């Protein structure tokens, strides 16, 4: 697919980079990235991937825009309150870059639907806000052997890691299984500095672009943690876990399943 005059102009700052060039830009335009969750992390990721000229973006989200989202979900604007997030996001992407085809999935990712969607993409971005979805994305990407970027944000902290299934440590290598729900503070309970989503979601987009172009070193086998208050970035080195229930040699998880919340722990309630 040859670039048009307009595209050469639009992407000139990419094309001038030796590591990208016209060939790289054509590669990006032929690439497909799936963003699960059109919220805090998904918003900057989608905006930058759209501006970058990633040719196909998939957006999964079953939620509507809420007033409390606008403090950090920069793809949604005040008049969008009440509309489906995937529609709001699609409109902004179209306004930024008509080269980008957007496929919207106004649904919640589950074990029944996610693998078939993931299969159609080159790279997946986890922009979800709950552990069930985070484990589900990790597992779906393992079974479909798709590279993906995990991230999480809370209060003044963020973290991310890129997973190349079968080659690098996966989310389950580190965290095994979701924590007990009673222990989980969510953003609504704990709060989150809005700009954290922009920092971490933009890093996820960076990883997607690097993967698509085969550039540099991906954030594999390293969990990057970010503390906005101290402005410390730390990359914690990790290895694949031989005991991993998903990607280890004796894996117990052999098919995609939804994470059920663990049985109620009555300790402390009696």
């Amino acid at each position, binding site marked *: 697919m040859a670039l048009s005059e307009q595209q050469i102009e639009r992407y000139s700052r990419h094309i001038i980079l030796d590591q990208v060039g016209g060939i790289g830009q054509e590669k990006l335009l032929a690439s497909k990235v799936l963003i699960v969750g059109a919220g805090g992390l998904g918003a900057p990721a989608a905006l930058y991937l759209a501006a970058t000229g990633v040719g196909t973006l998939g957006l999964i989200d079953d939620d509507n825009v809420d007033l409390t989202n606008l403090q950090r979900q920069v793809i949604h604007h005040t008049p969008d309150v009440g509309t489906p997030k995937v529609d709001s996001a699609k409109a902004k992407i179209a306004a930024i870059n008509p080269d980008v085809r957007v496929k919207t999935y106004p649904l919640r990712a589950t074990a029944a639907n996610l693998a078939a969607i993931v299969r159609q993409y080159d790279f997946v971005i986890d922009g979800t806000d709950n552990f069930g979805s985070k484990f589900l994305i990790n597992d779906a990407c393992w079974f479909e052997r798709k590279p993906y970027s995990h991230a999480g944000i*809370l209060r003044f902290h963020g973290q991310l890691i890129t997973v190349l299934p079968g080659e690098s440590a996966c989310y389950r290598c580190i965290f095994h299984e979701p924590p007990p729900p009673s222990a989980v503070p969510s953003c609504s309970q704990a709060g989150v500095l809005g700009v954290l989503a922009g920092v971490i979601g933009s890093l996820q987009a960076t990883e997607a672009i690097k993967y698509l172009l085969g550039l540099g070193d991906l954030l594999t086998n390293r969990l990057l943690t970010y503390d906005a208050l101290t402005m410390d970035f*730390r990359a914690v080195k990790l290895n694949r876990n031989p005991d991993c229930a998903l990607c280890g040699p004796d894996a117990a998880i052999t098919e995609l399943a939804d994470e059920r919340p663990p049985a109620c722990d009555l300790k402390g309630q009696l």
Partner: protein
Amino acid sequence: MKLIINGEEVSIKDGLNVNQLLVEHNVKMPEMVSVELNGQILRRHVYETTQLNEGDKVEFLYFMGGGGGAE
């Protein structure tokens, strides 16, 4: 003994196991933490029987579930 915890040198009582270290280091919600010892992630059931030694590198990796969605 001295340990390197999350990249910083920390002096701590000798002879602790991983569970005791979580308490000693004031980790408030241990169920939200995964522990890496010298590059290997530990399963929870070995915390009690895993003794720490001088110079060990320990990383407390925190579960972070937020994504800035609706929550």
